[in-house]
């Protein structure tokens, strides 16, 4: 019973961990959608002519970037209820991930936006496009494809930080593994399996991202 690796136990916990991985994937996907969206909003607001908009946004982005994700998770889960905002652990975790990585994504978008030649803005003005259509039809379609690889890196990084959600007892992979381990006093199998899950998902995601990049390149070539 005391061998290094217990296969019977492994088969027993595998379905449980597989189910928990769905929570991890859910947190990753929703967190990243939030991050990618918020990041774009932050980046555009920071370009505002009005310092009343750009400066507070810049300050907020710097603040979030400079504080640990774990604190933000705790803050949203434990402090928001003081202000009447009660969220489930998973929702709070997704919100924290999205917010935290949104600030990183905003820097990526900012670089992408800064690379658009001035002539594109000027042609948009000369055609009398509104600010909204200038961004939506001219600038963003050109700014995003080149930064997809950088955004993809943050997707993988966000994914690898989802175990932090175990700190507020979200039943994702890590938390589930910890519970399994504490019930049976065998940590080797659950923790190792979680590591393998992460490895496999990271590799799959990286491969998918390469597909997307290749597709964007072919499309961008026109």
């Amino acid at each position, binding site marked *: 019973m005391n061998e290094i690796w217990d296969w019977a136990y492994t088969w027993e916990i595998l379905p449980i961990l597989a189910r928990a991985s769905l929570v991890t994937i859910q947190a990753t996907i929703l967190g990243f959608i939030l991050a990618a969206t918020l990041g774009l909003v932050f980046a555009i607001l920071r370009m505002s002519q009005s310092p009343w908009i750009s400066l507070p946004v810049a300050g907020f982005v710097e603040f979030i970037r400079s504080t640990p994700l774990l604190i933000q998770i705790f803050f949203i889960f434990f402090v928001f209820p003081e202000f009447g905002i009660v969220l489930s652990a998973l929702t709070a975790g997704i919100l924290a991930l999205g917010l935290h990585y949104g600030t990183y994504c905003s820097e990526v978008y900012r670089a992408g936006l800064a690379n658009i*030649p001035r*002539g*594109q803005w*000027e*042609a948009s*003005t*000369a*055609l*009398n*496009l*509104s600010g909204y*259509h200038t961004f939506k*039809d*001219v600038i963003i*379609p*050109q700014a995003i494809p080149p930064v997809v690889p950088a955004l993809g890196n943050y997707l993988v990084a966000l994914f690898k930080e989802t175990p932090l959600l175990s700190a507020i007892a979200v039943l994702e992979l890590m938390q589930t593994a910890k519970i399994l381990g504490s019930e049976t006093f065998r940590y080797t199998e659950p923790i190792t399996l979680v590591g393998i899950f992460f490895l496999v998902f990271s590799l799959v995601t990286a491969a998918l991202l390469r597909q997307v990049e290749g597709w964007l390149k072919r499309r*961008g*070539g*026109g």
Partner: protein
Amino acid sequence: MRETNGSAGEAMPMVRFDHVTKAYGSLTVLNALNLDVAHGEKVAIIGPSGSGKTTVLRMLMTLERINDGVIYVEGEPLTHMERGGKLVPANQRHLRRLRGKIGMVFQHFNLFPHMNALKNCVEAPVTVLKMPRREAEERATELLEMVGLGDKLGHYPSQLSGGQQQRVAIARALAMRPKIMLFDEVTSALDPELVGEVLNVIRKLGAEHDLTMLMVTHQMGFAKEFADRVCFFYAGKIAEEGPPEEIFANPKNERTQQFLSAVLEAT
């Protein structure tokens, strides 16, 4: 604040620069410029590098703010708007309304690289003029045919030569139905053998469309043949202006003489 400038009417020029001054920091690029352009008139702007030619067009296209003076379009202030009998700087809404009368073609084309030729000419009419997409596509097709690119509708800018790209850019500007067209050295970035095809399109525009045109050009031959009037810019001022026959055959200003002989020597 200055007095408002009467009401719009037949007598008003299409474009009026009224004591327009533009400075970048301490560098005054245009100094109290006065220039009237009549309806349908074709004005060629020539002059040495840095004399402010591009700046004139960019101010009219509202790509640059002006520091002093007023620009009028069809008698209506462009850079300003009337508030209680006074002129105050124009807001975005006012700019957007008046800017619709003006189109511009740039030296480096500035086509949208992620849209094919047709889409380049369709987006603004659909989103700005609220034209139904079908109609916008039909009109854009006609315009691209007019500039000789009827067989290139699906081509992206990267698949077109410089001359073809510039012709798409002309069609794109025309699709917005401007009354005034601005051309800033539109052939300067082209290989010599492609210049002719773009100039031919501009000739055709001049003949077939009711357009007022301001063009900055180094093509003296074209200016001579095409323009109704030539303005020679020097150090942010119009140093000399007149019909091309006079300016080219018989320049009075010493600067004009020097400039023209230098240009003619180079070609």
